[in-house]
């Protein structure tokens, strides 16, 4: 792969129309940086989005882009990838876009393991339509559409993705540039579908939703970095650790006391038992790759079949059109 474009070359001349201070700016910068590192020519990227603040993303990426319909980006991206497996196809979506109207499409894309990379900007709110509750809004939250508080329980995007059989699932945070870039690069290299949940601050309608993670103290106390082959330790100097509790769940342990008990993260485990547990964890908040296993990507399977069929083809169009039972009228 030759020299790729620079980060700057990924920017368009469109005015960026997010609110000042929106977490989307940082994500945009990270995506541009990460794309530049991939060494893939600019014209090979396609960014597909639904509708939402986050879904304005394609307009700001100097690549091919398609701003589609609310919740429907996965289908469009699937069609693109099946037609052009050589392209690097990215979906940008919001928590409402991906998990309300688009939940079915998202989970099916993951189930199919079609080689698209999905960036789910989770700000736990509907930004574009001015602040209504989203499927990830906390129970009890008051919003313009739920003045009495949200009565539902929120979805956990990572848990759903794992249950759908996703082969790559990760989580990062808008402001954690280096980490986010790493996740993006990892997703880019994965075969098949990849989902990154990106915790994103909407400073207008849900400011501080992830303060416990992004605040200075929070970063130290509440973030659990998932690193393959490394123990699940967090807190100041890794002073806290997670272990299995013997009843199928997780328990916090003191690594100093019981270093052997601390679970070692295995993103490649064939089953998703531990990732499932981590996906349901509220504190600490795991960041990093929950799961990265290999399985054939849909577009490859279909391409190979088509090529095999081509090779095995025993007649041209004329034979096909005539079929086995034609007759000739002189």
């Amino acid at each position, binding site marked *: 792969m030759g020299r790729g474009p620079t980060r700057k070359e990924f920017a*368009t001349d*469109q005015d960026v129309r997010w609110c000042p201070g929106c977490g989307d700016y940082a994500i945009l910068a990270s995506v541009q940086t990460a794309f530049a590192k991939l060494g893939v*020519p*600019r*014209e*090979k*990227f*396609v960014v*597909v989005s639904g*509708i939402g603040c986050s879904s304005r993303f*394609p*307009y700001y*990426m*100097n*690549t*091919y*882009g*398609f*701003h*589609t*319909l609310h919740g*429907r980006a*996965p*289908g*469009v*991206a*699937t*069609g*693109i*990838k*099946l*037609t*052009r497996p*050589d*392209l690097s196809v990215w979906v940008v979506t919001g928590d409402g876009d991906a998990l309300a109207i688009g939940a*079915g*499409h998202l989970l*099916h894309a993951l189930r199919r393991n079609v080689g698209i990379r999905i960036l789910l900007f989770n700000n736990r709110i509907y930004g574009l339509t001015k602040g209504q509750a989203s499927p990830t809004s906390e129970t009890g939250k008051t919003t313009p559409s739920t003045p009495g508080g949200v009565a539902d329980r929120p979805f956990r995007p990572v848990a759903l993705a794992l249950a759908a059989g996703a082969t790559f699932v990760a989580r990062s945070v808008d402001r954690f540039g280096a980490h986010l870039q790493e996740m993006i690069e990892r997703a880019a290299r994965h075969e098949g579908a990849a989902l990154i949940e990106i915790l994103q601050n909407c400073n207008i309608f849900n400011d501080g939703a992830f303060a416990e993670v992004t605040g200075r103290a929070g970063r130290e106390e509440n973030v659990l970095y998932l690193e393959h082959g490394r123990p699940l330790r967090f807190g100041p100097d890794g002073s806290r650790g997670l272990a299995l509790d013997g009843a199928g769940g997780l328990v916090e342990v003191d690594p100093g006391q019981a270093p052997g008990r601390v679970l070692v993260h295995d993103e490649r485990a064939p089953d998703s038992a531990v990732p499932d547990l981590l996906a349901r964890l509220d504190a600490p908040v795991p960041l990093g790759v929950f799961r990265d296993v290999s399985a054939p990507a849909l577009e490859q399977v*279909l391409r190979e*079949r*088509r090529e095999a*069929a*081509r090779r*095995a*083809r025993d007649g041209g*169009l*004329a034979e*096909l*059109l*005539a*079929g*086995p*039972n*034609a*007759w*000739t*009228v*002189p």
Partner: protein
Amino acid sequence: MITPGEPLASRPVPEGGSRVTIRIAGDSGDGIQLAGGRFAGATALAGNDLATLPDFPAEIRAPAGTLPGVSGYQIQFASTEVLTPGDRADVLVAFNPAALRVNLPDLRPGGVVIVNSTAFEDETGLRKAGYETNPLEDGSLDGYRVHPVAIGRLTREALADSGLGARQVERCKNFFALGLLSWMFARPLEPTLRWIERRFRDRPDLAEANRRALTAGYHFGDTARLFETPLEIPPAEVAAGVWRALDGNEAIALALATLAERSGLDVLLASYPITPASTVLHRTSRLEAFGVTTFQAEDEIGAVGAALGASFAGGLGVTTTSGPGLALKGEFLGLAVMTELPLVVIDIQRGGPSTGLPTRTEQADLLMALFGRHGEAPLPVLAPRSPGDCFWTVLEAARIALRSMTPVVVLSEGYLANGSEPFRVPGEDELPEIRPRRLSDPQRFEGTYVRDPETLARPWIAPGTPGLEHRIGGLEKDELGRVSYDPDNHERMVAARAAKIARIADDLPPAALEEGEPGDDLLVIGWGGTWGAITEAVRAERAAGRRVASLHLRHLNPLPRGLAELAGRFPRVLVAERNCGQLALLLRGRLGLDVESFTRVRGIPFVVAELRERIAAIVGGGVS
């Protein structure tokens, strides 16, 4: 009562003699559709013209022997042109009492009934069909020429030592009947024998059993002499060339392969199963070798989304569905209009509204196809006229989609999807050129929505093309592709999108009569699958001396040029359609034409007689 084997003095087809309508009917489990299809295949091979009407009654397999469980297959064939499957049958083959009861009303008086008498020996079967006494014995069939044949028992006997279980033997009855029919109408057995061989390649025992049942039926006909001699219907005089039997959904699958092969485009058929469209997906999924990929999506919205993605990626996206599915795709069609991407959407209409009569045929999705989107979102709408015409219409739809960068809706119908007719296989040179015009030279790029002066199409640029990175989407854009909320720009773009579609008419043949001539007393206008019935009715009325003309629309939007003028030359215009007057509303609304409507909404095709009656009532007088 007539006993089996009693020879009849006359042939089974009284009038004319060179045109027969047969209906085979039995339980859904009896393999009726298969027997019908094979008979049609052999008939086509014998060079007759034909039209068929399969009729699966309900969406769920009803319990054996009940009225809702009856499956039927009708075929009309002749030495001359055949345009419809026939109003009424000349010959009815009934596999069980329920089939007799359901289908008898559609047999012409004096028609021939061949009944599987084995099924009438059993009380329960009669009761399930609602017969209190045995109709073979109670005289209720007087007025028909009834031939009880113990199809069940004879098949069992023929397969006595086949080693198959009772249930499997039972399922060979249809081949016995097919053999009998083959003898009656002098159809050769070879094509069917070849078919059996191919089909049961992996099950030599079943192949053998079906072969035996088939020949047993044939020999029974010869031996028992139901009729004096087999009825030979000489081949129709048709154009020279290679011919085949083809149903509408198979025709669509072949069109997609043709498209991919001729254009060099990757064609993606992304669909969600729905009756009566599913078989297009099934058949196309076997055509990978020709460059068509199929994708069964999680729903209709995912399907059209994937198809549109394929077109954005520089391939051609196609999606097939039926009414409920088209209703779901409306939002995406709006996006396709806005982003001006090629897309072919095929709606095999069925009986509606809602789930309606899913296995029946209707033409009531026209206005939805035209208007079922928010905002001003015009797109071309086409409709095939016959099963084989589905092939040509889909090619035409793709041509328009690619030339004008627009989604196109094709409105087929259950009747065309499942019905079959002889189809002259086109040679390479008869297939249209399909040249997708994709832009790849950045020097020649002026703006995402800077239009071709001739077609008003915007340039099509596939991702992967260096230097032409661009972004499209559902928000209104200016010529250069930038999001724009400017009122004047919006008005300009709305007008430009409309003009682009209107201009397609420049490229279409002007309105022309099908039958008759300007100045006749009445013009009958139709569209889609009613072509056969309308043409037959108009020809018959003309033959009876009435001055009636007909015109059939393939292009519903834009309408062909000259239509208003041409129609204006008739004192009366009758729009005949299987809905409540949708085309009539369109012709009045768009062209200000003063038209009358003849509409039926019965889930079945037009009956030629009802059309003739209406024409005669309008034109009056009449001779012959």
